[in-house]
């Protein structure tokens, strides 16, 4: 039995991709699981297509800091490859990275894609997902985020039932079709990571 400690998840992406929504789903799922969880996010100018990230901390004891330090994150979920690289140093040695391969290049000086992918693949514990292909196959433009969450779910102490309940609640207002599409994407991602 390891000593109880605080766990950390970092979610990163580009403003408008839904990184903060994804973090909220994580937070709700952890809370439903009976864990103490906190989320830190930055609003304002960062939402206008700039870099966006959120920290989610959880433990089975009360916690008070929503901020994750270098080397303390168990998991990094990145909706965009360059936005993954910015946060790799936050990961523990045994931390996992789930990341979309789909670049958002509308910015000054985006590095050569081959360099970005090479850097990602060099990160131990990295799991890449071709979200563009997945979105096409599932005929669901927004499938990527949910599939990444599905992959991430393999590293988190939340039951599949809880995930499904939280996701369904999140999309309830948008109708059963949208909910099913998102659950489908979640399962697709979950199947990508071996148990």
């Amino acid at each position, binding site marked *: 039995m390891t000593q109880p400690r605080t766990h950390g998840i970092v979610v990163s992406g580009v403003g408008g991709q839904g990184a903060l929504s994804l973090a909220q789903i994580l937070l709700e799922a952890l809370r439903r699981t009976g864990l103490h969880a906190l989320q830190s996010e930055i609003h*304002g100018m960062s939402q206008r297509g700039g870099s966006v990230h959120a920290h989610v901390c959880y433990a089975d004891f009360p916690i008070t800091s929503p901020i994750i330090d*270098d080397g303390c994150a168990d998991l990094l979920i990145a909706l965009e490859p360059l936005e993954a690289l910015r946060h790799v140093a936050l990961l523990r*040695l045994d931390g996992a990275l789930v990341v979309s391969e789909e670049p958002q290049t509308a*910015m000054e000086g985006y590095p050569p894609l081959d360099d970005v992918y090479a850097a990602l693949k060099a990160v131990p514990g990295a799991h890449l997902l071709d979200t563009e292909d997945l979105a096409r196959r599932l005929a669901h433009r927004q499938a990527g985020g949910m599939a990444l969450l599905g992959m991430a779910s393999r590293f988190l102490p939340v039951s599949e039932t809880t995930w499904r309940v939280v996701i369904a609640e999140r999309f309830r207002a948008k109708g059963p079709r949208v909910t099913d599409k998102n659950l489908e994407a979640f399962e697709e991602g979950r199947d990508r990571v071996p148990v």
Partner: protein
Amino acid sequence: MNQSTLSLGVEAVGMAAFDAGIKGAFGYPGTPSTEGFECVEALIQAADDGRVAQWAANEKVAYDLALGMSYAGFRALVTMKHVGLNVAMDAFVNSALTGVHGGLVVLVADDPGMHSSQNEQDSRRLAAFAGVPCLEPSTVEECYDFTLRAFALSEQLRVPVMVRLVTRLAHCRANLRRQPSAGPAGLGVAPLATVQDWVLIPSNARRRYRDLLAKGPALTTELAPMNRAIPGGSRRGVALAGLGRAYFHQVSQDYPELQAMPRLEVAAYPVDPTVESAFLAQVDEVFVFEEDHPYLEERLALRESASIHGRLDGTTPRTGELAPRILKEALGVSLPSGKNAITLELPVRAPRFCEGCGHVDAYQALQAALTLAGVPETRVFGDIGCYTLAAQEPMGAIHAVVEMGASISMALGAALAGQAPAVAVIGDSTFGHSGLPALLTAADAGANVTVVILDNRVVGMTGQQPSQALDQVERMVLGMGVASAQLQVLTPLPKQHEANVQALNAALRHPGLSVVVFRRECIQSLRRGLLRDHDREAKLAGPAACGVASCCPEALS
């Protein structure tokens, strides 16, 4: 009720204000305070029990609204960001002298690290300056509890009470359990016997200032339980406030050896010097962790009884926000080794204008017009809003951004120094916030200034809140004394580019005050349909003549 919800820290303040039975909430949007107002606004709308949530034209107006509501015997909340308190400072400082009737709580959200602000001033100093008590929570739960306490304290001591948050707490999301909600209970209008308290002519003000100072001992007694000197088993201690308190508790769970350190925990100001003395008597060395200015640190350093480490001696960074890492480094605990940072150079992904934003078309027309006029190097005075993004390269279209409303008066000052053309760019909401008096002075001075108002019909940057200037901009401009011949209303669209350049060129060449309004709804607001109902109703009501031919010709024909 006892509901449990996920809530931001700043929303917890709003919920507590609602549950404390406020009659009204007032504010001006500003990150990271905005969601506090929006939360209480949603609760008030859902309750539909005669309470009000009203955005104000600026923070001073918001503060005065809250003070008036207090005078009328009801509890009120007023929300703003730290620099907004500067705008409300006159009201804030003087309300400490008048005192309050119904409880008045001012939520101020500071922004250490300047995530979306022009400075990182510390509102604790402004509370001390005004002689107003300040409560500083460290967790979302405390945001709620402290706000409830602030209302009780405000009515008990008859002073406004500040609840000070910082960005990381304002935007920290956590589980929150609310208490049963109380409806607004009116105390009736401030009694006749107290009328002179509210009339701050010098004879009364002198008395009220003494009265305010005389509240000190009672205040100290009330706040005493919130500030504690906790003994330990070491001569090295920590002094903690706000998130410094939260971070230390977290770090000391992961590094139990730190739990032996004596602690000074501060959650309310002013701090009783006897608590500081009790703490200092136990230690030879103190590490201070607080957000923003070295406020507590300066107080402790003045005592000269222990060696004080913090922002002043360089143990922690002098600027920027606190982080658990800073505590760990200062206290010398071993840092975990994680994955290696990426060696590939990672360029910054700066925020950008939204695809299809009208501001871009307006700026392109302005830059083309300045080139056409032969003055492409003209320094343009900008203002605060989404359109501030134009200061970034490659656009580089504005060259000064200082505070809300500064564009017009700075352009006027430059014009009076001989700069020609002198150009100001300001948004519709910022214009209503504090551009109006500047335009009044510009019209009076008769100087050669071109004012470009970017009217996107909402408060865009903070999340498309309603703009008080909606459909009013031309009338406001004319009302300030601008000649109607020198007011043009344009549509910032690519297909209008040439016409817009010509119109701007004419304004730039006019040797006096001219105003060009670019109007097109914020693309985000359009997508969300925020003005759909408003515009449908306005259309049904028929065109309104504003007196400007280029704006509503059909109404004038």
